[in-house]
């Protein structure tokens, strides 16, 4: 079978999957919003545009304004951009480290595995939030990039464990032996036999890391340890709560960012389930 045909078949099943379609639709919707949103927003997210202070949504301010008279819609779309950046970078770093460590440990086995496993376990038992707090608190100026690094560097152990287990089980599968018996070189065995089986795992690990990073960032932002020079959805909620939006009933201030985070992370998880069905030929027919 040719490569194109394989991809076509994959796309066919991917596009037919309802879960994947719904998830993808929601994520794409928000992703597109991050691009065209800033064009639609007439105001800078930090400008105090409405001298009247907090006001509910109106035709002038689509999502209303904050206690300080800032445009919530502008903050929302810029914040969304930060959220996707954190997901992409933070989740990306987490996935990359996790995959490298997990794959090496699982494929090499023996002493290498034991050492890497030990490292993974150590990182795993360190209370991540506490470390994040300390690191974040030490840095005077925090950029989104630094936040991504912090999140990525602490989130990889679960991925590493999952990938290690998967590699380990694949490596001992008889089709790998059979490929060797077919005279394949080790590198070819890894790339043509093991890696394709890992693809679904990789994509899914990334999706989970992506969602996890967004949630982690929101937590950090919410407790006031987010970036100092940018806006994000978590930061919006933090400021809203700090200035009594809950008590004042300014729901338009914290509902959009909260809803967006929930929707994106939820959609990612739904996509994850859908992808599982697409990648596994056995589940396709159901």
């Amino acid at each position: 079978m040719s490569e194109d045909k394989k991809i076509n078949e994959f796309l066919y099943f991917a596009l037919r999957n309802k879960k994947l379609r719904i998830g993808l639709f929601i994520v794409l919707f928000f992703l597109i919003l991050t691009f065209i949103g800033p064009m639609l927003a007439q105001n800078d997210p930090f400008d105090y545009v409405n001298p009247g202070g907090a006001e509910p949504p109106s035709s002038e301010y689509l999502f209303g304004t904050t206690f300080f008279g800032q445009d919530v819609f502008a903050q929302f779309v810029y914040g969304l951009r930060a959220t996707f950046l954190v997901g992409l970078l933070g989740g990306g770093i987490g996935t990359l480290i996790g995959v490298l460590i997990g794959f090496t440990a699982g494929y090499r086995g023996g002493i290498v595995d034991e050492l890497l496993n030990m490292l993974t376990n150590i990182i795993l038992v360190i209370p991540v939030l506490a470390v994040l707090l300390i690191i974040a608190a030490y840095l005077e100026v925090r950029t989104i990039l630094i936040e991504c690094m912090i999140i990525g560097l602490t989130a990889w152990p679960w991925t590493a464990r999952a990938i290690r287990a998967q590699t380990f089980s694949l490596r001992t599968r008889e089709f790998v032996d059979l490929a060797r018996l077919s005279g394949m070189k080790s590198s070819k065995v890894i790339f043509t036999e093991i890696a394709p089986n890992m693809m679904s795992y990789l994509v899914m690990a990334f999706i989970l890391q992506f969602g996890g990073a967004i949630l982690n960032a929101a937590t950090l932002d919410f407790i006031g340890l987010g970036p100092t020079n940018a806006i994000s959805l978590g930061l919006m909620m933090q400021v809203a709560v700090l200035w009594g939006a809950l008590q004042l009933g300014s729901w338009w201030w914290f509902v959009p960012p909260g809803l967006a985070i929930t929707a994106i992370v939820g959609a990612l998880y739904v996509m994850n389930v859908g992808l599982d069905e697409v990648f596994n030929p056995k589940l396709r027919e159901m």
Partner: protein
Amino acid sequence: MLELDRVSKTYKVGTFGGKDLHAVMNVSFNVGDGEVVSLIGESGSGKTTIGKMILRLLPITSGTIQFDGVDISTLEGAELKDYYRKVQGVFQDPFSSYNPIFKADRLFKILQEEFYPEIKNQEWDDKVESAMKDVGLNPNEVLNKFPHQLSGGQLQRFLIARALLLDIKFLVADEIISMLDASRRIDVLNLLADLKSLGLSILFITHDLSLGYYISERAVILYGGSVAEMGATEKIYFNPIHPYSQMLMACVPRLDQEWEEVDVDLRGKQFEHTGGCIYFERCPIAGNKCLDEPPLIEIEEDHFVACWKDFEENA
């Protein structure tokens, strides 16, 4: 054709490899041209490990395996590939022998890519088709399907067809029957028998003694990684000498005779190589002498036993 000489496999176990686990200990036997040898043993006997060492899927800890006079552990690159042109394996679990995300016939494509890049696609497809017919498969029914859409028997035949395409001299068949249904087993066994009559040598690894008898001229009985008894099939089956072989023969459920009264030891097996006879712990007739490892001695023509008790009786 194939000769194993004091082959051992030791694994390091425990934290940082503190302990040795002897999966296979000093196993020597050979398989002649066009001969079928059954390698019989229970779980943990090391039979699969031996098969994998012959196929160069596991490194040998000590000892040598020679194929046509060449030490196979020295083969590298093109030589190893040449070895695989002559020696192939089929494994127990047909389902795990296939990469689940690819169609089952990809197996043949790989073979063509690796071994016969010079053969044209059309010609290769014809070869594949005739090999499929040789193993009793209807190509139209089974080609272009995912592994999970085929039955265990079909998958197993695929694997044998794959070996046939290579025109091999030696086949390691590791429990290839046990996952099949009773009415299909005999077909695969007969297929192996036919191949043998065409000159193929087979190492038939099994735990089922009646299957072993049907197809092989010689049998090797393994216990805890060591050879307990080996020789001509009739001698092993009808005149077992080693207490383990005797117990095994008495416990096999047969369709033509009922179980004899034998005491079966239900204690868990622990293969600990303490230097003595590996069967010491479970042996009903073990004596002091058995604290030393018994050598494998030819007690009659083509019948080898590793048991002190028997040596004493004949001394």
